[in-house]
């Protein structure tokens, strides 16, 4: 088993795409197990993809793609601006609140960073923010936004571990709000130090107008979460309703979705799904190997002897941060889940708690200098160097990591909202 993991590391370092590296390493592992049937390869990939919960992935990608037109991000930014622009920290707060709204529509962190960043970074630069600071704020906000459902990471995690995706979605809200509050507080201190001026206060009439213009876009998360949390739709069904809603609003109300845009969106959805699903399939072969080998159980008993669950959660954060930064988030998660999730189960860690912690860490890792993929999006948009962004971003990421540790130690942050909606019963 160690051989398969070492081989994976070697393949991945050489640059074999993660899905194929996982598959090829698993092949070697199968070879080493006496009498393991090769047909596992095809059957585990098929079984890995053939899962109704995972159908939420293409639908959330498609709905997000249709809602990510320029007009909608502009409207959500305007709404955030009239709401919090006057708070000390000014446009920095606007970035955070706009990201809360926008992440509730889109399931993709990189798309969030690009959409909000392209509107807000130029605006922040005009209002006295340095390019590095502006880029760092967008990166931190997008990293927080991964916790706001709908979230593809949660769909994948929930489908693979058989954890309720509705519960995971509900569980993400409070951690997202706490992380936003922590970042706003951090920004407030920065604002004093850097002498950033807040925007003028906006009249209630203008606020009402901004709300009216953003209403169609904001109704989408209301439909999704109303449906899921109210127990009306499964997440997959809510996602397809979101697609139909996005097509109607995009075509008829905002007029930004044309038939050719729709066809391109369908194609992008198919290709992105293919990339994600091949990874899930290959990771499923790996998971089979891990179960057969009994390695996770052995590691679990080792951790048990040095302190159990809490030690494991902190260890997970330390392993996930560099791993997810290097392996672009989701591929890293799929690679490590077959090892770490069984350990969590052996140690009696709640899988909803573990999933939210993993998601929070992924948000930080995606923007972790110098390798996080999301970082390169804000680099391009802000025109700052990696060094300038890192100098501003690392303190924010430290604040976010502190929140992640808080989530690890105080599980009720995760359970509270699902409990209120009857999706979680305390043990």
């Amino acid at each position, binding site marked *: 088993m160690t051989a398969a993991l070492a081989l994976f590391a070697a*393949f*991945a*370092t*050489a*640059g*074999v*795409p*993660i*899905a*194929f*590296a996982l*598959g*090829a390493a698993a*092949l070697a592992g199968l070879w080493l197990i006496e009498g393991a049937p*090769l*047909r*596992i*390869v*095809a*059957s585990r*990939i*098929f079984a890995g*993809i*053939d*899962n*109704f919960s*995972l*159908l939420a992935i*293409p*639908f959330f990608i*498609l709905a997000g793609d249709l809602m990510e037109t320029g007009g909608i991000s502009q409207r959500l930014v305007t709404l955030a601006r009239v709401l919090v622009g006057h708070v000390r920290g000014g446009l920095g707060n606007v970035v955070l609140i706009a990201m809360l709204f926008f992440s509730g529509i889109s399931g993709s962190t990189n798309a969030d960073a690009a959409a909000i960043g392209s509107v807000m970074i130029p605006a922040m630069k005009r209002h006295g923010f340095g390019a590095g600071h502006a880029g760092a704020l967008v990166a931190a906000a997008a990293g927080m936004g991964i916790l706001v459902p709908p979230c593809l990471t949660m769909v994948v995690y929930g489908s693979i571990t058989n954890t309720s995706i509705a519960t995971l979605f509900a569980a993400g809200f409070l951690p997202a709000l706490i992380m936003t509050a922590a970042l706003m507080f951090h920004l407030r201190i920065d604002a004093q130090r850097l002498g950033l001026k807040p925007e003028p206060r906006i009249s209630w009439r203008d606020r009402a107008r901004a709300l009216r213009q953003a209403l169609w876009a904001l109704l989408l998360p209301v439909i999704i979460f109303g449906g899921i949390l109210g127990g*009306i*739709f499964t997440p*997959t*069904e809510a996602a*397809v*309703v979101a*697609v*139909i809603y996005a097509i109607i609003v995009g075509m008829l109300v905002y007029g930004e979705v044309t038939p050719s845009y729709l*066809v391109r969106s*369908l*194609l*992008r*959805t*198919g*290709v*992105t*799904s*293919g*990339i994600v*699903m*091949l*990874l899930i*399939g290959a990771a499923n072969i790996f998971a089979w190997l891990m179960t057969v080998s009994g390695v996770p159980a052995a590691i679990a008993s080792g951790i048990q002897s040095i302190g159990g669950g809490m030690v494991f959660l902190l260890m997970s954060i330390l392993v996930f941060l560099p791993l997810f930064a*290097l*392996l*672009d988030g*989701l*591929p890293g998660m799929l690679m490590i889940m077959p090892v770490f999730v069984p350990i969590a189960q052996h140690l009696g860690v709640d899988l909803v708690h573990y999933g939210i912690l993993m998601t929070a860490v992924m948000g930080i890792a995606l923007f972790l200098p110098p*390798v996080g993929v999301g970082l390169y999006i804000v680099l391009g948009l802000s025109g700052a160097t990696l060094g300038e962004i890192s100098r501003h971003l690392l303190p924010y990421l430290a604040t976010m990591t502190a929140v992640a540790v808080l989530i690890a130690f105080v599980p009720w942050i995760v359970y509270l909202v699902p409990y209120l909606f009857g999706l979680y019963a305390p043990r």
Partner: protein
Amino acid sequence: MNELRALAIGLDRWVAKAETVVIVVLVAMLTAVTFAQVCARYVLGDPLIWSEEAARYLFVWVSMLGAALALREGGHFGLDLLIRRAPALKPALGPMVTIVTALFLLILLKTGIDETNLASRQFAMTFPMRMQWAYLALPTGAGLMLFHLAIHFIRSPSMHILDIRREPE
């Protein structure tokens, strides 16, 4: 030789176009079937029994074809840290990476064909279709990925798979 090369590249473009059309149609069908399920259950009050299973098999096809087109366009995630830091290694690593990828795809093709043959004796649970039509997505996807990989190799034997970056046509 050059003509053969041009022919192969032309074929690659044609295959990619066919994949594009099929993916767009399948994703549209996937959306329609699942939305029909929601409408039937909540609007008509008469749930469809076949929609969920049909959507799952459609998605297996979408996934395998999407993965194939992604391979052509260089969309699969990989760790490019080493080849960015040490570009001198690239000509040596490129063919190795291609071989490892091809090896996995060959095994997927072979086992996919076996599973498809086995599945010809089973039927889908909720509608009359032989399961081979669902499993066929695996060898088809693996075959197409091998094809695109071979064309990349013909274009430039020393290319590294992570260097491929192209827009869908």
